[in-house]
């Protein structure tokens, strides 16, 4: 009797072990919901071209937390889609990533502007990341119809924007909606404001030095940028609800405020991805309802620099099997961009992409901005070490709830340790 049982057990076990030899690629990322459905279409396009390979995507809103835990536990996915270069640098430093192999590297060099290769390169000089979905930041969203009815013109310079803001403040509707509440990531929307202002008040080299801690938070340049934001949020009537409510207002609600009925505000600063969380009826008529302009340069002597963000795909150590490499290389081509572009809410940096795949003129204009930009910088807070990024988020939140700016800057600088 025991022998028979033993035989049965080993038979079941061996058969399940044998079935495990199927070619599967596991991908872990931070997009969920609608984004996940759109990425699934990218996967479907790949699987249709490569029968025999299956791609399993898992998404979590707590991606950064979970990937750290999984790395600590030695339980890697094959591929991760990392939204923050800072996290990629940390992982590369821990030695758990595989650098891009030659064929992938050639593809990236051919198909992307050099800025994206730089952003995918860690401190050791090796390239690890392939960018896929990206976004443009520093865009001011406004309500086209409302602007037309009020006779407002899109401001081209900072003084024009200031004059317009003043004019708007005299109406019953506030000029700006700002919301930075975002659960555990509360504060990131405010860091976008500061980063965009810094790129418009100081040379890009200052921005680069700021990311690498050669320019402190408590420096004249960063203080100056913070002062510009401070002028906006502390002037009565400039921000809907006033300064302190910014901290408890969700960033999505703030974006929707522009198109609410009655409108809560005239303008909202957000990334190109904001089109994904506007009201349904607005999303259905993006071209008709949504107007966008770039936040104007403040120091006009400086060249225009675009702030961008995005997900880069990396391969984990020991996972560089042929099918994994194949999927990575697919992501570096415009063919992988089309299904998601058609769904909306995302931009792609590939040179060989089909721009007609984007269904709205608004998104096509974003792509034009993205591909024609002479200089681009990645979201600074996301490129800083995780601990500093967290302190930056918390610091801006503290600032909005009334903490003294000197203390806020000191607190964030302290996150670098010694």
């Amino acid at each position, binding site marked *: 009797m025991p022998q028979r049982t033993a035989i049965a057990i080993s038979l079941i076990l061996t058969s399940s072990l044998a079935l495990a030899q199927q070619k599967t690629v596991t991908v872990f990322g931070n997009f969920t919901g609608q984004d996940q459905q759109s990425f699934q279409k990218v996967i479907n396009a790949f699987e249709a071209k490569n029968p025999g390979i299956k791609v399993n995507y898992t998404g979590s809103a707590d991606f950064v937390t979970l990937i750290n835990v999984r790395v600590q536990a030695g339980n890697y996915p094959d591929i991760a889609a990392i939204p923050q270069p800072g996290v990629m640098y940390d992982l590369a430093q821990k030695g758990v990533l595989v650098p891009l192999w030659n064929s992938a590297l050639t593809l990236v060099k051919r198909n992307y502007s050099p800025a994206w290769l730089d952003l995918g390169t860690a401190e050791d000089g090796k390239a690890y990341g392939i960018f896929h979905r990206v976004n443009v930041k520093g865009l001011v969203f406004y309500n086209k119809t409302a602007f037309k009815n009020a006779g407002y013109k899109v401001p081209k310079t900072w003084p024009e924007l200031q004059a317009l803001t003043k004019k708007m403040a005299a109406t019953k509707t506030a000029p700006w909606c700002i919301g930075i509440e975002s659960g555990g990531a*509360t504060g990131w929307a405010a860091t976008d404001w500061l980063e965009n202002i810094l790129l418009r008040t100081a040379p890009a080299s200052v921005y680069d030095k700021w990311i690498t801690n050669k320019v402190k938070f408590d420096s004249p340049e960063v203080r100056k940028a913070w002062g510009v934001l401070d002028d906006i949020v502390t002037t009565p009537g400039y921000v809907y609800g006033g300064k302190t*409510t910014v901290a*408890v*207002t969700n960033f999505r*609600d703030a974006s929707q405020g522009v198109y609410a009925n009655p409108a809560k505000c005239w303008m909202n600063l957000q990334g190109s991805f904001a089109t994904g969380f506007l009201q349904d009826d607005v999303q259905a008529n993006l071209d008709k309802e949504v107007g966008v302009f770039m936040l104007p340069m403040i120091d006009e002597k400086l060249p225009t620099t675009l702030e961008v963000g995005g997900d880069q795909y990396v391969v984990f150590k020991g996972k560089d099997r042929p099918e994994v490499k194949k999927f990575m290389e697919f992501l570096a081509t415009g063919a992988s961009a089309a299904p998601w572009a058609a769904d909306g809410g995302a931009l792609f940096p590939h040179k060989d992409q089909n721009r007609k795949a984007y269904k709205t003129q608004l998104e096509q204009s974003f792509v034009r901005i993205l591909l024609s930009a002479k200089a681009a910088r990645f979201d600074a807070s996301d490129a800083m070490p995780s*601990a500093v990024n967290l302190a930056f988020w918390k610091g801006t939140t*503290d600032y909005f*709830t009334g903490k003294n700016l000197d203390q806020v800057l000191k607190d964030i600088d*302290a996150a670098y340790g010694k």
Partner: protein
Amino acid sequence: MHQTPKKRKATKQAFPQSKGEPANLKNLLLYGVLMVLALEFFRRIFVFLKAGDAPEWAIFLTSILWGVLGIWVLFYLANMITESLQERWRGLVVPWIFAGPALLILAYYLLIPTFRTLYLSFFDGSGTFIGLENYLYAFTSGPMLESFKNNLIWLVVGSGLSVVAGLVIATLADRTHPWFEVTIKSLIFLPMAISMIGSAVIWRFVYHFQPGETQIGLLNALLTSVGEVPQPWLILQPWNTLFLVVILIWMQAGYAMVIFSAAIKGVPSELLEAARIDGANEIQSFFQVTIPYIRGTIIAVTTTIIIFTLKIFDIVLGMTGGNFGTQVIANEQYRQMFEAGDFGKGSAIAIVLLLTVLPVVYYNVREFRSSHQKAGF
């Protein structure tokens, strides 16, 4: 404990073929080898499961087989090994066969992690040895000082009011009509059935604030309906920590109430009658008779809730994420460890948390023991 003759007979029947005769060496060797093979086999399956490359259903099936049949095979072999031993040895080995796995699991999941945490707390985020620097951070940094202060508020206000509210409700409910008592106690106990993070979600709606005319948050809707100005509750420092503590009381008062209620019903009515005959009024007999009688219960409940509040985490994470001056120790640990990826600082904070809880646990165990000794166990 004394074995009855009947039990002794039963034990002998379980191992019938060895009545003090020499060990069956051939069997012992055979089962020993089988045991080693089985262990290796199960280790390989563990490695396979951990790699996680297989389709989900295969992992599912394998882990069930591994768990259920694996335990059975190991136990069967262990039993056969003991049976091949001399009776003298068997007595020594049998307890370990039964208690050993539990002890091993306890060590693996409790002791090793504790010592590993202690070890990790001496390194920085990138794995360089830095001695006690993380502890310097854990005792002097801004967020940690804020956490200590807030944890103290949670401890005093949260645990205190939970216990007092539980005691008052239990006492008052005891004097009402049974039907009313059951209803009110069920209602107050209900929040215990909700997870901490679920409670946080519910209370976010209570405290919700948005600028402008319409307020969908319960508290602000009430305020605006009587013509008051709505308040952003969660950022009103220093009151916001207290608003979070309310959630704990809402959840824990029910637990305290149920236990106290049972204890109060256990107070002998002769004692209370005697007190009344001696001229004590309701309040006096409550403080002089009931409270001393249920002292052990009060200590047990209080220490349990204290431990619970010291490691408070979910409510803060769900409501404010530790922003707006509401940070607590456990949440700061989570933040350092998993969000910032600094296992050194996180571990040091975890150890600090462990150290703050230990005295309470020690006191609880000591009280438990002495009360049992009194009761004659």
